[in-house]
Every structure is written in structure tokens, then in C-alpha cells.
């Protein structure tokens, strides 16, 4: 029964969701609302479990003085700081000018932005290491990348300013993005869409059950 009940729930909810897409009449029209509410409720409760797990692991690391326990201490301190200040501000914690807002603006934003900014460096190093004209196809990709990288920034048109209007690097980049790139994306997306339908059916029909700890 430990596996059968989840499978039955999955089957009923899955079929119900497919039906509600085609039948706008009640009770199907309410189904997505009910399930989205349930998902939000379960998700909100699960966040507590996640936070507790993080705290438990970090606290164990600090108490037992495991390797790199200093990082765990930073996690605990940051977590407590945000939670305590957020709770002390009440329901207006997000209003500009609060202490929480200060933390958001001057700690969270720069830290997050820094992580995202690292991407620029990694793109460069990955391109340097992996972008090679190994064969004809790779060379074609490399040439397209050159045109797009130059055409997507103003300097591309500075370099190709001698070309007639409509034939400059920015136009070439637009063409690459709109046609070959778009066609490739579509092919991948169609495959993904079909893969999602197939996997969903496997899950709804109870054939795929590894995610509930079942399977062969």
C-alpha cells in the first residue's frame, strides 16, 4: 500500500489535470485552483523542513568541529540574522527603509549579482578552452558565433560600417538568431515536449515509479 496509494493519487490527479484543460465546466474548472493551493501549502510547509535540515547539518558541523566548520558558522549566523530582523520588522518587512530592506539592498543584491557576474568570466574561459574548429560543423558554429558576438554589440556595426545597409554584422546576427538558431531551438523543443508527454504518461500510468522509490 505504501506505493499503491501514491500511484493512485498520481493517476487520478494526472488524468484530472489533462481533462481540465479541455473541459472548462465545473468541477474541472476548479481543479487547477485546488491543486495550485495544495501545492503552495505543501511547498510552504516543506520549506521549514529544508531550513531545519540546513540548520541541523550546519550545527552538527560546528559542534563536532568537522572540516571547514567555519563556513557552517557563517551559514547559521546569516540565517539567524535575516530571520530575526525579518520577523522583528513585522508584516512591513519589505517596505523601503526598513533594516530588512537595508540587508536586501546592501548585502543580498551585491552578493547575488557577484555570483551571476562570474558567468561572464566562465563563458570566456569555457570558450577559450572548448571552442575549437575541430571539424566542418564545429568551424561553422565558430563562424556563426563570431558573427553573433560581434553583431550583438554596437562595435559590430562600427567594424562593418563600410557594408551596405542590411548586410552589416548586426543584420547578419539577427538573421542567425531568427532562422538557423530558431530552427535548432524548435527541433530541440519539439523533442523535449514529446519527452515530457511520454514521461508524464509513464508516471500517470504508474509504469515509471523510480521517483517514489519503486521500480524494477
Amino acid at each position, binding site marked *: 500500500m505504501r506505493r499503491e496509494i501514491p500511484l493512485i493519487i498520481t493517476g487520478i490527479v494526472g488524468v484530472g489535470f489533462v481533462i481540465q484543460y479541455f473541459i472548462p465546466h465545473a468541477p474541472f474548472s476548479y481543479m487547477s485552483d485546488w491543486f495550485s493551493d495544495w501545492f503552495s501549502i505543501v511547498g510552504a510547509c516543506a520549506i521549514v523542513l529544508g531550513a531545519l535540515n540546513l540548520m541541523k547539518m550546519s550545527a552538527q558541523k560546528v559542534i563536532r568541529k568537522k572540516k571547514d566548520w567555519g563556513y557552517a558558522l557563517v551559514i547559521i549566523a546569516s540565517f539567524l540574522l535575516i530571520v530575526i530582523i525579518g520577523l522583528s520588522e513585522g508584516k512591513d518587512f*519589505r517596505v*523601503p527603509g526598513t533594516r530588512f530592506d537595508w540587508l536586501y539592498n546592501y548585502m543580498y543584491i551585491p552578493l*547575488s549579482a557577484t555570483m551571476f557576474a562570474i558567468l561572464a568570466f566562465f563563458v570566456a574561459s569555457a570558450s577559450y578552452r572548448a571552442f575549437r574548429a575541430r571539424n566542418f560543423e564545429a568551424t561553422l558554429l565558430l563562424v556563426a558565433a563570431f558573427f553573433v558576438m560581434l553583431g550583438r554589440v*554596437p562595435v559590430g556595426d562600427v567594424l562593418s560600417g563600410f557594408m551596405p545597409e542590411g548586410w552589416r554584422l548586426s543584420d547578419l546576427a539577427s538573421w542567425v538568431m*531568427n532562422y538557423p538558431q530558431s530552427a535548432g531551438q524548435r527541433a530541440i523543443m519539439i523533442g523535449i515536449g514529446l519527452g515530457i508527454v511520454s514521461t508524464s504518461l509513464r508516471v500517470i500510468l504508474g509504469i515509471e515509479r523510480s521517483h517514489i522509490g519503486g521500480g524494477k
Partner: protein
Amino acid sequence: MSTKAKEILAITIIVIFCLIFYIRKVNGGEGILFSSLVAWLVIGAMVLSLVWILILTIRGRLISRRVVFIYVGIALALPLFMPFTQRIPISPEVRALYNSVETLKPGSKVLISFDFDPPSAPELQPMAESFIRLCFERDLKVIIMGLWPQGPQQANMALEKVLSDEKMKVKNLQYGEDYVNLGFQTGNEFVIQRMGSSFESMFPTDYRGTAYDSLPLVRNVKNFSNIDYSFNLSAGFPGSVEWVQIAVDRYGVQLGLGNTAVQAPQMYTYLNAGQITGILGGMNGGAEFEFLCKYKGKATKFMLSQSFAHMIVIAFIIIGNVAFFLGGRKSALKKS
């Protein structure tokens, strides 16, 4: 010098620079700008050093990825102090988005969803500011919401900046009548789906806690059918894909997108299929939109950095390929 010592040296230099700029900013100092001569000298030095790296590579000495990082850092930072301006070419997808907003009549209701957080703000915030500015200039009514918890906060920052402009102050724009921030709602794509039947069920109060019914702008907005145009600023999930699949495909919403550069290529498929009216892709898209709006914002300011960074990446790809071909030739010689 050990790696540790190098790291400490690099961090110290960065901290000193940050302190200098911070103290200047606090004291109301003006931004530093190189003269054209200095700027050209800096560019020349960079080109020469790249040639030197190429020579080293030909000689068989490959550079480490840290050197690439340093060059990217320099290419991004130094152009901020250069006096050059660039002509920004307008791509058809950006123009299409601008035109779709231009065709809206004064008083039309525009829904803007802020589905991003601070990490992607450098790319998306300039788009948000210029789009809101354009809406207000054209007397459009702006309804803001967010599927990401930090989205409405980013919206407030954009509103604050736009409303502080003298041109906007003259318009005497009123919260609740001309613009409203409905805040964040959890539930990802389900929020969009439920907004198809009722906005109020998802946003019973606005960001400030005012009841939906008490806001004159949205009092009669029941669902998407009462919205004239929608603009989505997205950095991931939930975001543009969900807006297209639900709001556009199910409810026929007119949608424009503002995406991070990484995400934008995927959205071209929707553009060509007529599901969206236009895309602002990355910083470049933002700069193009600012140009059309006749407003010089951060995106325009940062385009020089982006141009330099792209050139540096291209230079390193060339160097990497030189190394590859030389390596291949050597291995071929060895085989023979």
C-alpha cells in the same frame, strides 16, 4: 610569489580601488573619465598584450584561465572610464516591441510582471526603467506584479527612479489610479493560470496591503481580457516560457518580453510564431530600447563594456584555436 600571496594582493588592490571610489562618491565627487588619448593608449596596451599572448601560445606556452579572467575583468571595467560613444543599431525584434507599445491608446492597461531577482537586475532593471518610463510618457496605466519574491521590490526601485524624473513629476501620477504594484504571489505558473479567471483571487491586496477592490485602476480588471498589453521581465522559471504557454496560448494576451541574454535565444521561436510581439534580449536589447525611447540609461552606458568584453572573448577563442592547430600539427608530425 605563492598563490595565496597573489590572491591576497589581488583582493587588496580591489579593496583599495573600491574604497577610493566609495569615498569619492560619498564626497559627491564626479566620475572619473579618461581623455581620448589615455583611452586609446589603454586600448593599444591591451591589443599589444594580446599579441604577446598569441606569440607565447605559438611558442607553445599556454596561458592559464586566470589570465583570461583578468582580461575579461579589465575589458568590462576600463570602458566605464572611456569617453567613447557608439551608434546603437536597432534590431527588428526590439523595434517590434517598441511599435506594439506605441500603438496602445492613452489609458490602456499594461501588465508588467517582474520575474527576476537582484542577480539579473543589471540586465533587466534598465529595461524595466525604460519600459515604465515609456508607459508613463504615453499615459498608459501600469499594473505591476511578480512571480518571483524579489520582483516587486525591483519594481519599486524602478518606479522610484522613473518617478523622481522632473518630466514625470509634472504628470502628477497617482498610485492606485495610474500605477499599482500588486506584489508577489507564490504558485509559479498556476498564478498566471488563475489570473486567467480572476486577478483578485491571486492578489486580494496590493503590495502595501490595500484591498484590490479599493484600487481604482484595477477595480474593473477581472482577468486578462481587461488587459491591453503585457510585458514580462524574466530571468528563468517561472517566467517568459510560462507566460507564453499560459497567458498567450490560453488567454490570447498581447505579450512582449525582456530577457537575460542567456535566455533570449529560446524566445525567438515564440517571436517567429507570432506568439509574442517583440523581445529585449540582454543588455544589448535594453540599450536598443533606451535608444528608441530617447533615454540614456544604464544599458546604453554599459554597452561599451559589453563591446570590449565580446572582442576579448573572440580574441581568446582565436588564441585557443591557434594553440589547437599548432598542437594538432605537432601531434601529426610526431605520428609521421
